[in-house]
């Protein structure tokens, strides 16, 4: 059960980040030329490989209870951020995430940026692609390493992320456009729920608590997080109908 949950979580979280990275790379490639952008993608992939190669073995020597405490805390902090934004989007307090709008904005910025050549590359195209892939990829690397090491199976988590890479890159290459039909907002909601669920479960175990029912309690935590999130969406929708949203929350 937890193996399937692990692969699904790694796949979903990775897919969401990769869709966002693809949008940035497409905009950089179309506006600034593919060579500089693809070199940026390659350099970012290399840098991520170094991060994983250094952090991966380091995580395996940390005692499991300490690892679960630290990872649980980090996943909870991440998960709550994702969940808060997802609930605000679902209740109408925050604009939905639209890849086509982001693509248009990135493309416009890339088209109007001045050209500076460094090392035979268009520097803007290189840095935009590098930053897009590295920053989104850093979250993927973090999720894969922490999920994998805490569950005792980095290969399973890597398999989930690799599956997402194949699907997103494959579809991206085929359509050569931002993946606007991916249900990204629903996926972000699911990722927020999963990160928070694993965060609660591992954080409590790492802090010394015992779950009733052992690993089976994960399903109970998942149901609790889902139920609470949906309840908050319903409450905020009702609140929004009676009181107009503030400009800050809409931003």
């Amino acid at each position, binding site marked *: 059960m937890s193996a399937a949950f692990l692969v699904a979580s790694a796949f979903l979280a990775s897919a969401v980040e990769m869709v966002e990275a693809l949008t940035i790379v497409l905009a950089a490639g179309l506006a600034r030329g593919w060579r500089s952008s693809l070199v940026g993608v390659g350099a970012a992939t290399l840098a991520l490989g170094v991060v994983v190669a250094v952090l991966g073995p380091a995580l395996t020597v940390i005692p499991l209870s300490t690892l679960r*405490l630290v990872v*649980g*805390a*980090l996943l*909870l*902090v*991440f998960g*709550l*951020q994702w*969940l*808060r934004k997802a*609930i*605000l989007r679902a209740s109408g*307090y925050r604009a939905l995430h639209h890849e086509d709008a982001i693509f248009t904005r990135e493309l416009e910025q890339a088209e109007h940026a001045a050209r500076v050549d460094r090392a035979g590359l268009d520097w803007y195209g290189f840095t935009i692609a590098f930053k897009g892939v590295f920053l989104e990829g*850093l979250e993927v690397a973090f999720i894969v390493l922490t999920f994998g090491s805490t569950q005792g199976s980095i290969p399973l988590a890597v398999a989930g992320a690799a599956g997402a890479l194949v699907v997103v890159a494959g579809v991206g290459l085929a359509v050569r456009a931002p993946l606007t039909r991916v249900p990204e907002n629903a996926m972000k909601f699911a990722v927020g729920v999963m990160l*928070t669920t694993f*965060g*609660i479960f591992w*954080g*409590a175990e*790492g*802090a*010394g*608590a*015992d*779950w*009733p029912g052992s690993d089976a*309690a994960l399903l109970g*935590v998942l149901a*609790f*997080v889902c139920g*609470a*999130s949906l309840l*908050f969406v319903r409450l*905020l929708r009702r*609140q*929004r109908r009676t009181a107009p*949203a*503030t400009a*800050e*929350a809409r931003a």
Partner: protein
Amino acid sequence: MSRLRAFGGFWWDFVVGDDWLSAAGVAIGLVATAALAAEGIAAWWVLPLAVLVVLAVSLRRATR
């Protein structure tokens, strides 16, 4: 110094983001869980409760 600050700022932004109150709530929840567990008291319920409270407060601040 400014590079060190930028490095620290990057990681603060990456981990804590724009809602430090949630991170503080998580830390308090974990400390409370550890304290109860050390006394031999069942503490599995603390983090779910903490998440509920943190999320409620965070959403209230965001929609106020």
